[in-house]
């Protein structure tokens, strides 16, 4: 990981994040961005494979509580993420490297800002030591 350029993978739900903006316009501003139809679709293996492939952090953006289009996909993923954080810690991957935020951002303007904020944390953490 170059000091200034940690690799962050962001998954976000298309229903809550950036649905009023042109996806390609947003995509041009965000690297390693994977919009999905419901955050519930994000499997633990997707997250692990991102780390395996060299990600320094993974950010998941789902809809706010009570606003999932599929009832509770966001909560299902939150449960996975909170438990997976503990598992990652044992693998030597700090919990802060996997974050989930449940909120709404129709324009998607916050996505690059949230990524920036997490990247700053990742710079402080430095590279993953154990993998």
């Amino acid at each position, binding site marked *: 990981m170059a000091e200034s350029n940690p690799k962050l993978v962001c998954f976000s739900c298309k229903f809550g994040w950036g649905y009023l903006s042109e996806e390609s316009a947003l995509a041009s501003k965000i690297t390693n961005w994977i919009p999905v139809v419901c955050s519930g679709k994000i*499997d*633990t*293996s997707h997250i*692990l*494979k991102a*780390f*395996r492939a060299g990600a320094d952090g993974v950010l998941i953006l789902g809809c706010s*509580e009570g606003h999932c289009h599929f009832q*509770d996909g966001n*909560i*299902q993923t*939150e*449960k*996975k993420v*909170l*438990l*997976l954080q*503990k*598992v*990652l*810690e*044992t*693998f*030597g*991957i700090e919990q802060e490297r996997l974050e989930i935020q449940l909120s709404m951002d129709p324009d998607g303007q916050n996505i690059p800002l949230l990524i920036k904020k997490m990247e700053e944390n990742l710079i402080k953490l430095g590279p993953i030591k*154990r*993998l």
Partner: protein
Amino acid sequence: MADKPKVAVYWLGACAGCDESIVDLNETLLQLAQVVDIVLWPVAMDFKYAHIEALKDGEISLSILSGSVRNSDHEEMAGLLRKKSKLVLALGACACFGGTAGLANFKTKEEIFSWVYLDAPTVVNPEARFPQTETRVDGKVLTLPEFYDHVYTLDQIIEVDYYLPGCPPPPDLIANAVNSVLTGDLPPIGSTLAPRMALCDTCSRNKKKPSKMEITQIKRIHEVEADPDSCFLAEGIICMGPATRTGCGETCMKTNLPCRGCFGPPPGVVGAGPKYLSALTSLIKAEKTEEIHEIIKDIVDPAGYFYRFTQPSSILGRKKPKKQMEE
């Protein structure tokens, strides 16, 4: 004698439980001994490695290898037996996925050495001596295998033809595997010689599973008196059945213990650990972040639970060996 197919049985980083399971074939073992020529089996018989080295390449019909690969001796023997054998069967969870010994990958070699040779309360080592691969004593050189910085599965070191998981694998599946080799009635190379379903599919406790499972509290098996017929998961006791291949004979279930996952994942599943984690969390009844934390705080050592037998073959735990056997 010379016409009988040759079979070798060898332990790498193993506890001998897999060998014990072969011994548990009882009378079948005697019948087997009449039709095959056992050329190596350290736990039961006396052979010299030089005899194996003297064999032609591919002369052994089947090598049954248990244990993971943790040191240079394991790697060397695995390579030698691969060269001399037509078929290699990885026997047991350690050889197939790394096994319980693979949990050591959660620590570095340095951490392990410090604990074992320095910091453990029963150790007295004032001069802080650590094992060396070479030591000179009276002009002679004593050698020890090199302890690697990682636990490897067998197929990360040599090519493996068939797999038979379990800790240890049950004797009936071992007998089937050997018979299949002897009769030539074998599935495609790379197959696991065990049923293809998940344990939940064959578990008798499945009938008592409620149609909608909701876990509100995680309990550990020693903290409760588990009902001998009920599904463990439905009671909030972690049972690896949903992410584990069946075929073990359900010995744990029969003694009222939940499945720990020694048969590894069912076919098509890469990583039993993360799959199980997803399955388990989907059953947890919680709607708010605090409620989720409240329930999962009782899962003590989740990585240890979910990767108990599979760490070295897992998405994050696997590692390419530094040096491969030459040739």
